[in-house]
């Protein structure tokens, strides 16, 4: 049974589509509904794909500008989410290349303020928090070093929790390819982690 506040994809899509229609009718402020709904998702995706908060913020802004500019070509009978993901990934591929050229990749952790985070104090000591922070930083850096397609599949599947068929739709590739990319992403990541932690005496933090 459908409740009034049912958050199902169909209903969510209906609200977004109504906002899209209003935007197309000339009410730009209706686009705010789209922006509010997808900012968290696009920010998290962009941060993982690019590694830096500032770059991620810039990317989110540019992705929404592209979405806004492309609204007329969106087919209203389709689902909005895969469409916005497709635009986002295409944009992120280009901006990752640009920023890699601009400067060496430097990772900004989502939890750079980890040591100061309240609530953990009783359970884990500062050394363990540092250990976790270093591991997280190394994980983020490893992700930035694999191929765009592998990284995208891996992030969408393992970290954003999308299904194989959703990812196939978004990226315009067969489901079998999604699975292959996921497997290769994981192998490459494991390889990178071992290779980069092998040489130092304690093996820590050297990726």
């Amino acid at each position, binding site marked *: 049974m459908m409740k009034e506040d049912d958050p199902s994809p169909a209903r969510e899509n209906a609200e977004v589509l109504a906002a899209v229609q209003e935007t197309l009718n000339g009410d730009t402020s209706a686009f705010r509904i789209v922006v509010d709904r997808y*900012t968290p998702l696009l920010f998290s995706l962009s*941060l993982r794909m690019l590694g830096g908060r500032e770059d991620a913020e810039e990317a989110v802004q540019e992705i929404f500008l592209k979405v806004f500019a*492309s609204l007329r070509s969106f087919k209203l009978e389709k689902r909005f989410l895969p469409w916005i993901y497709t635009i986002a990934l*295409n944009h992120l591929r280009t901006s990752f290349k640009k920023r890699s050229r601009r400067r060496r990749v430097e990772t900004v952790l989502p*939890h750079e303020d980890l040591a100061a985070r309240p609530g953990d104090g009783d359970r884990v000591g500062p050394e363990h928090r540092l250990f976790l922070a270093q591991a997280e930083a190394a*994980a983020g850096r490893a992700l930035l070093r694999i191929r765009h397609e592998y990284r995208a599949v891996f992030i969408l599947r393992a970290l954003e929790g999308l299904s194989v068929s959703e990812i196939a739709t978004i990226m315009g590739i067969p489901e079998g390819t999604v699975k292959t990319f996921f497997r290769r992403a*994981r192998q490459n990541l494991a390889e990178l982690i071992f290779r980069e932690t092998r040489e130092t005496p304690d*093996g820590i*933090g050297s990726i």
Partner: protein
Amino acid sequence: MNCREWEKNFKNWLQANETLDVIRPTLPRSLAEHPAGCPACRFRYQVFANLSQPDSEPIEAPTDLPRRVMAAVQRRSAAPVYRRFSIPAFAVAVAAAAFAAVLMITLPTRRPDSSTVTVRLALAAPRARTVAVAGDWNAWNPESDRLFDVNGDGVWEIELHLEKNKEYRYQFIINGESWIPDPRAGLQVEDGFGGTNSVLDI
């Protein structure tokens, strides 16, 4: 088990357990013992675990980001649309691509009884290695619509079948990295990032 053996066993186990449904399989006891006593391998495993944990720590967007996005959107929608013809556009394109001597032909031909229009885009770029076009119709994918220089005259071409009665913004991408507007498009609009999009109105 030493570190090297553990690495080998860990990778083997990984390969044997790489089904998509088990994103983070539990480490078997035989593999859990070594890292328990070895900080380096404990770290390695922790890095890997971080990569396999859905929303271990939800990433939060800056609270004012939607507002900033909307401000940019409002600026964009208010941006003046202006017509510009080939001479200044030529200069822009050459500055951007340095090597693209440019000539552009756009030929929309309407096919009877069809909701699509065939549009031919062409760009003269004799020294380019690749030319592609990204725009509203292909979700700005720089790799989905490539132009080809079939007869080796330096003019790259593509035919697109686009829906009628729509307006499409687009740019050419040369060698996968230089984005330039179509120097011969009748209509150019600011793209909001300091660049220019070409507009096809069909």
